[in-house]
């Protein structure tokens, strides 16, 4: 069945984008997660990469999560001697999460998710039009 191929592919796009949203929400939730030990490392922002994979059954390229990595750029250091994570010099290493970047990324992920969703909708309409030929 050919139209269900496109539904399959759009579904792979949906799952990839929702994995991306998961990573983004994880980053936002941990925007203030500092270390539990004095002078320890805070939460490091996670990144996600996609790749296209040839689906041998249909001969079309699906999308898959390639890997979830870690962004190792150091975050800012804030002077807060009373914090449990403060080192000997009184500075706390903060996570490297920029909420603005995450929000923009989230918008893009949502756009791509919506696009895949409307592809499924269109394909479904096409399938229904074909089926309705039977009623004539």
């Amino acid at each position, binding site marked *: 069945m050919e139209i269900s191929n496109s539904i399959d592919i759009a579904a792979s796009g949906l799952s990839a984008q929702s994995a991306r949203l998961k990573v983004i929400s994880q980053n936002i939730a941990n925007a203030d997660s500092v270390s539990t030990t004095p002078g320890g490392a805070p939460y490091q922002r996670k990144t996600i990469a*996609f790749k296209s994979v040839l689906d041998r059954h249909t001969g079309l390229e699906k999308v898959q999560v390639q890997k979830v990595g870690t962004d190792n750029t150091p975050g800012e250091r804030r002077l807060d001697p009373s914090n449990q994570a403060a080192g000997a010099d009184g500075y706390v290493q903060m996570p490297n999460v920029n909420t603005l970047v995450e929000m923009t990324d989230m918008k893009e992920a949502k756009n791509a998710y919506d696009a895949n969703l409307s592809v499924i909708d269109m394909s479904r309409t096409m399938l229904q039009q074909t089926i309705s030929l039977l009623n004539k």
Partner: protein
Amino acid sequence: MDISKLKIFNMMQANLSYLNQRQDVLAQNVANANVPGYQGKDLKAPDFSQFMSNAMGGASSTSHIQLAATEPGHISGTGNASNIDAVTVTNKGGEVTPTGNNVVLEDEMLKISKNNLEYQQTTGLYSKMLALIKTAIGGSSS
């Protein structure tokens, strides 16, 4: 009389099959819109003028599109008209992101909705033709 011998049905079947395949390719573009280095693809429409000249000419005995035999060893099969292998082309240019992806979601959505509209048109025409035949054989056309 066999319905599949009517040229108009053959053409409509070929068109539906092409639109089907194009929907797959466009869905693939949308799904891969965030993959680094992915190049958008599209399907080239089959040449329907060949169908037309066959249908109008009448003299020509072949009702099917012939497979291209580019090598002496190739078999000149009787390719069924409703089973066209349209050519996949890679989209060139356009807006390329820093990661080397040239899929523009808006363009793809536009193509998909046009594709969908054309599909609707063809299925509508198909049911009209069926109704015409029903009228001709004296059945009640709904």
